[in-house]
């Protein structure tokens, strides 16, 4: 394992400290907790929090700041944070109007966030939440636990963050999330695995000429291993599936996110987005906004994901385009 770090078990601690110090104009660490909260107060507004295992940087803390998340909670690498830490994030985010939690759909995350909700409610803090399940790689029907929450989650952070900033209530945020979530779909692909520092070895293996479609952001298995193929073919494979799931039609507007997994150069991401935008054009679907870069990574995994969000409501675009004061949006 070749990494820039000190002791593997200290990596989350040191990374948090580094983020807090480097960006002290935007965020601060809450005591000695695993929580980074924004400096901006947002008094009287609903607090918006998210979090999960570490290793997905800049998610989640990179999206903390005015107009987006109020606080983010860090779990160990690829491990859900504990309820007491989530509760710390809730307390930090609560400015009198309750706290809304954006949870990615993993059993561990859901359980720990729900327990934190119980703890917060016992202390009189109103809490509601939504669970993102944008990864359609693995078919839903087969698995009663549903699909994974991946890169599309950042759209939820941004759009809910915009409305929280505007003063939306817990109830309004919940209702908005229910409209939003079904319109966001993602599929990833991997060229090479990540290494969890404490494990010291790759989470899976791929031959020199193999790629895997549908891989998760913790290296969870995808739906197909194939030989390395041109970017155009990869784009088509994923785009077709997303387009079908969203029932895209000529004249529709979408938001496009090509998300690097941590080890993929922008060069490849831009070649890929070029192919995606070609496919959209052919289908007469308009890309109202396109984002390219590392937003929800899997440490140093080589690969990327494509997210499409169908713009059922044009106001969502304004929410996405509104300026924010965060580290990484």
């Amino acid at each position, binding site marked *: 394992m070749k990494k820039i770090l000190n002791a593997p078990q200290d990596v989350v601690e040191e990374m948090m400290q580094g983020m807090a110090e480097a960006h002290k104009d935007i965020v601060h660490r809450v005591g000695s907790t695993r929580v980074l909260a924004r400096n901006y107060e947002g008094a009287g507004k609903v607090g918006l929090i998210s979090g999960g295992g570490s290793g997905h940087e800049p998610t989640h803390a990179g999206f903390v700041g005015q107009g987006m998340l109020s606080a983010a909670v860090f779990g160990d690498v690829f491990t859900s944070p*504990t309820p007491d830490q989530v509760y710390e994030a809730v307390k930090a985010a609560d400015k009198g109007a309750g706290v809304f939690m954006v949870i990615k759909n993993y059993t*561990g995350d859901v359980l720990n966030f729900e*327990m934190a909700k119980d703890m917060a409610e016992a202390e009189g803090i109103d809490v509601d939440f939504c669970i993102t399940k944008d990864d359609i790689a693995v078919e839903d029907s087969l698995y009663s636990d549903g699909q994974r929450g991946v890169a599309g989650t950042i759209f939820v952070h941004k759009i809910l963050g915009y409305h929280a900033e505007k003063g939306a209530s817990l109830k309004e945020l919940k209702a908005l999330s229910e409209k939003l979530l079904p319109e966001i779909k993602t599929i990833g692909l991997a060229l090479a695995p990540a290494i969890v520092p404490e494990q010291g070895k790759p*989470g899976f293996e791929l031959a020199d000429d193999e790629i895997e479609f549908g891989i998760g952001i913790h290296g969870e298995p995808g739906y197909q291993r194939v030989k390395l193929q041109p970017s155009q073919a990869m784009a088509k494979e994923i785009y077709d599936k997303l387009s079908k799931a969203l029932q895209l039609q000529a004249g529709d507007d979408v938001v496009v996110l090509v998300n690097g997994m941590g080890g993929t150069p922008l060069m490849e991401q831009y070649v890929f987005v070029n192919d995606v935008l070609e496919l959209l054009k052919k289908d007469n679907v308009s890309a109202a906004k396109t984002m390219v870069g590392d937003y929800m990574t899997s440490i140093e995994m080589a690969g990327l994901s494509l997210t499409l969000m169908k713009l059922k409501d044009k106001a969502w675009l304004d929410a996405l385009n509104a300026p924010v004061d965060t580290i990484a949006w």
Partner: protein
Amino acid sequence: MDLTTAQAWLKRFFALIEEHKAYLSELDNPIGDGDHGHNMARGAKAAEEALQAQTPTSLEGLFKSVGMSLLSKVGGASGPLYGSVFLAFANEVKGQEVIENPQQLFAAGLDAIVRRGKASVGEKTMVDVWSPFVEKLAEGVSLEDVEAMVLATKPLKATKGRAAYVGARSIGHIDPGSYSSGLFFKAYLKELA
């Protein structure tokens, strides 16, 4: 079972976890993310430290302390599940000097798991060991029985937890949370013997 015996039971459980740490994570590799042993061991260590720092004076205090340690150190899926078990235990033994009704105790633990995890029998989770254990406890359950319950998770297809993502490929592997639950019951049976 009084406070001293219960303490010995949990000590034995933590030792088993530490001993099987690598194996538990290995079980979690093909169908999960390979961290179950590390997660549980982290929790066991924290629980032991907490018990050392402040010796509990009641069964309730013992279970509460362990529950809080697991909750605040394990994370993942197993943290809140095991944590909830011990908080339910604490609630169950409130004011008791000895555990009056073990079946009721374990039933409360199972109930907490199901309330949190919403899994039913057959979904390849620790419920598949907890449920038969609770059922069999009245008539008497042996170490071999527990062994059999754990092994019985092998042919199941996971539909809950991280293992659900590999779908049919989860068949043929023992569920790691069931294995650690088996260790928990074995420690209990051995302590009583």
